[in-house]
């Protein structure tokens, strides 16, 4: 059974990574693959979006399947499916090899309740409008960490090595490196080197979470994961797969406890904690005398579930009650941050922040790498939500991929036709830096790139004299605020590369009632 479970874990991890890699433009306007499948099956995502934003989406029904199965099977999702859990399992193995001799039973039963307190915080905060699920939900956390913290580094390493071989110009080796590079680009590697502003921070956080396995195998799943806590509660009874230890046969070797993935203490008999059990079958497979069995029964085979002390639950809830108003105080609520340029299809800001689970799918799929995680622009409540940073990448006119991958509808699904009408901000010139205004030379690169068919950037012509004294027509660009959609290609392509002479800010965005500039727009 243990091997079957391992196969399942590997297959689901492979599927997860496959979908992750496929979260990229593949030559069609529609992605075609359900790249956010794991998020769709994640009940914590559905629950938090429902509670925080009263979002009801048909796709949330998929997570009901997870819940239903969990009610019968317990935390099989953690043990058999969850990609983060599988990563922990792998790393946990290494730990077991090296450290187990020193501390064979690295269990911390007193930490078990922590994840329930985390869950209570998430739920209470969500009820009052702060969606924190995304920070700690394992699926969201993994996609975000891989996108922002991991993928860029892997890309850089492989690209760097192949580029180096290519640049050496050695016969056979360099052409081979070149072919390998071409074969990997767009398949395993990203089309272009991904660049994310908070790569180091998010990468280190992920490394720390994985590193916790050194304290105890699957430390995250056992003691911290709010989805694990939710599924634990749902699956408390798990009548189809209960661990049953025969006290008569047991020789008290404790091997089951050492092998347990979830700190569910099969030993001593009758002390099994169903909510902690990941249904990994290690205890059954490791028992030298066959005292452990896992089978369908309604009988209470263990009463080891932790007592969730009411004062701590209350403390978590109160913590959330304090935190929600606290994080809602801030400059970001007083005035929209000028750089808070949300992707097209983003719903109004308050609602957006409540729905967004910071999974990073939109940033992964963004063609130009322009969607970046916020740091301070949207306050703590909006940390790691997506904004467009035109200088890193503009919003491609004929693309709506980000709206196709959003799991919660924070970016609603929009057609391409709709997308072309949505203003995400407004470009304005800095005439002190703009070449025709400041230096009296022609340029209009912005006009050339403006994708709006009737051109949101036009120019006024003026007779001028060039440096040799000859007359010429100087074209001074101007923006039409009714046509400008704020895509930022002008800012991205402006030849004044350090501080572009035309910059997009969030003003005039269609979705906002307040962040407006003109009457009648």
């Amino acid at each position, binding site marked *: 059974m243990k091997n079957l479970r391992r196969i399942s874990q590997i297959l689901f991890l492979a599927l997860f990574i496959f979908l992750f890699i496929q979260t990229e433009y593949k030559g069609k306007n529609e992605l075609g693959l359900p790249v956010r499948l794991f998020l769709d099956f994640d009940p914590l995502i559905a629950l938090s979006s429902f509670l925080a934003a009263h979002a009801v989406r048909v796709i949330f029904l998929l997570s009901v399947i997870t819940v239903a199965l969990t009610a019968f099977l317990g935390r099989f999702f953690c043990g058999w499916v969850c990609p983060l859990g599988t990563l922990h399992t792998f790393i946990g193995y290494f730990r077991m090899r090296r450290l187990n001799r020193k501390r064979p039973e690295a269990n911390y039963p007193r930490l078990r309740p922590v994840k329930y307190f985390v869950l209570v915080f998430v739920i209470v905060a969500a009820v009052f409008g702060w969606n924190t699920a995304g920070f700690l939900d394992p699926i969201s956390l993994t996609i975000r960490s891989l996108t922002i913290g991991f993928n860029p580094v892997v890309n850089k390493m492989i690209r760097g090595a192949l580029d180096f071989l290519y640049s050496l110009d050695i016969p056979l080796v360099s052409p081979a490196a070149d072919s390998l590079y071409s074969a990997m680009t767009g398949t395993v590697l990203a089309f272009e080197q991904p660049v994310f502003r908070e790569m180091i921070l998010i990468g280190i956080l992920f490394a720390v979470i994985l590193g916790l396995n050194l304290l105890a195998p699957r430390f995250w799943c056992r003691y911290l994961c709010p989805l694990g806590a939710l599924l634990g509660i749902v699956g408390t009874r798990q009548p189809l797969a209960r661990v049953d230890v025969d006290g008569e046969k047991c020789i008290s070797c404790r091997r089951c406890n050492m092998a347990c993935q979830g700190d569910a203490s099969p030993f001593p008999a009758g002390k099994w904690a169903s909510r902690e059990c990941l249904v990994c079958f290690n205890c059954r497979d490791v028992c030298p005398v066959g005292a452990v069995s896992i089978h369908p029964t309604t009988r209470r085979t263990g009463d080891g579930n932790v007592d969730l002390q009411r004062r701590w639950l209350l403390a978590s809830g109160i913590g959330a009650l304090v935190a929600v108003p606290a994080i809602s105080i801030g400059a970001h609520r007083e005035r929209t941050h000028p750089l808070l340029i949300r992707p097209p299809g983003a719903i109004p800001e308050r609602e957006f922040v409540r729905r967004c689970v910071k999974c990073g799918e939109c940033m992964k799929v963004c063609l130009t790498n322009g969607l970046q995680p916020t740091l301070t622009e949207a306050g703590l409540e909006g940390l790691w939500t997506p904004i467009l940073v035109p200088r890193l990448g503009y919003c491609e006119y*004929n693309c709506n991929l980000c709206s196709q991958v959003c799991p919660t509808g924070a970016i609603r699904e929009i057609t391409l036709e709709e997308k072309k009408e949505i203003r995400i901000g407004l470009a304005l010139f800095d005439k002190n830096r703009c070449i025709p205004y400041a230096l009296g030379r*022609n340029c*209009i690169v912005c*006009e050339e790139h403006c*994708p709006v068919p*009737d051109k949101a950037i036009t120019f006024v012509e003026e007779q001028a004299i060039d440096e040799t004294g000859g007359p010429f027509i100087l074209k001074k660009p101007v923006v039409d605020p009714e046509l400008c959609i704020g895509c930022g290609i002008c800012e991205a392509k402006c030849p004044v590369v350090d501080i572009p002479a035309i910059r997009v800010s969030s003003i005039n965005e269609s979705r906002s009632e307040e962040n407006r500039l003109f009457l009648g727009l």
Partner: protein
Amino acid sequence: MLNRRTFIRILAGGAAASMLPLDNLRAFPFPGEDPCTFSVVKGSDSAAAVRKAVELIGGMNSFVSKGDIVFVKPNISWDRPPVQAATTNPAVVETVITMVLEAGAKRVIVADNTCNDARRSYTNSGIKTAAENAGADVPFMEKRKFAKTDLGGEILKMWDVYREVLEADKIINIPIAKHHGLSQVTLSMKNLMGLVGGNRSMMHQKLPESVVDLAAFFRPTLTILDAVRILTANGPQGGTLKDVRRLDTIAASTDLVRIDAFGITLFGDAFPSSDPADFRHIGLAAERGLGSADFAGAGFRKVTLES
């Protein structure tokens, strides 16, 4: 020791040198015939028009030798479908590649340094599929494949040039005729901007001088102008069919200055003047001896195909 740089220079030099005697040969009149050096073919079957246009100026065999590596440069700059006339017509690209391979070329490479996302532009222009069908390699221009090169121009000095262009034996330039906000038109010379990298938008400050420098450096073996559809306003990107005019016209010549001089006449009254002298880059290029601004001069032939 032959290092990479010298090798590339020799290759590029060789490619340029190999063009010269050919040009001289064709300028030499054959008995009883004024050899065609500039062809314009009108016909609704664009593949046939391309074939006829090239045939008139001597056939692909006089430009491409057996075993050549040929770099074909269409305009793939924008993420627009062919009907919007922002990118070279895929049928034209496909025909040119087929002809180049028929002439015995070893390999045809098609690429452009795009303005919109390269994947989208390659796909939606229809050029990737068309070129691959015809048997060309259609790589994306990756940053690592640009080599700092001395363009030796009057204002363009050291620029990133796509290595496969430098290593190719021949360059065939297939621009589309479009309006351009700054230079009024974008034709064959400006199309060469897609072969270089770096901060290309700086070139806009001295656009005529820049494109002439590019033309002088790359000296395409052959230029085939796609005027099947032309973009008459809001160029070079367009985006609306109201700015597109269908002309079903192909022009071919080894002289890209002549191509540009002819190209501006296609726009009718879209410009205040269609006198080549009013287009600075054409005048400059002619002054520098890159070609002739008199497109209708010796060897001009215009043919209309029956459909």
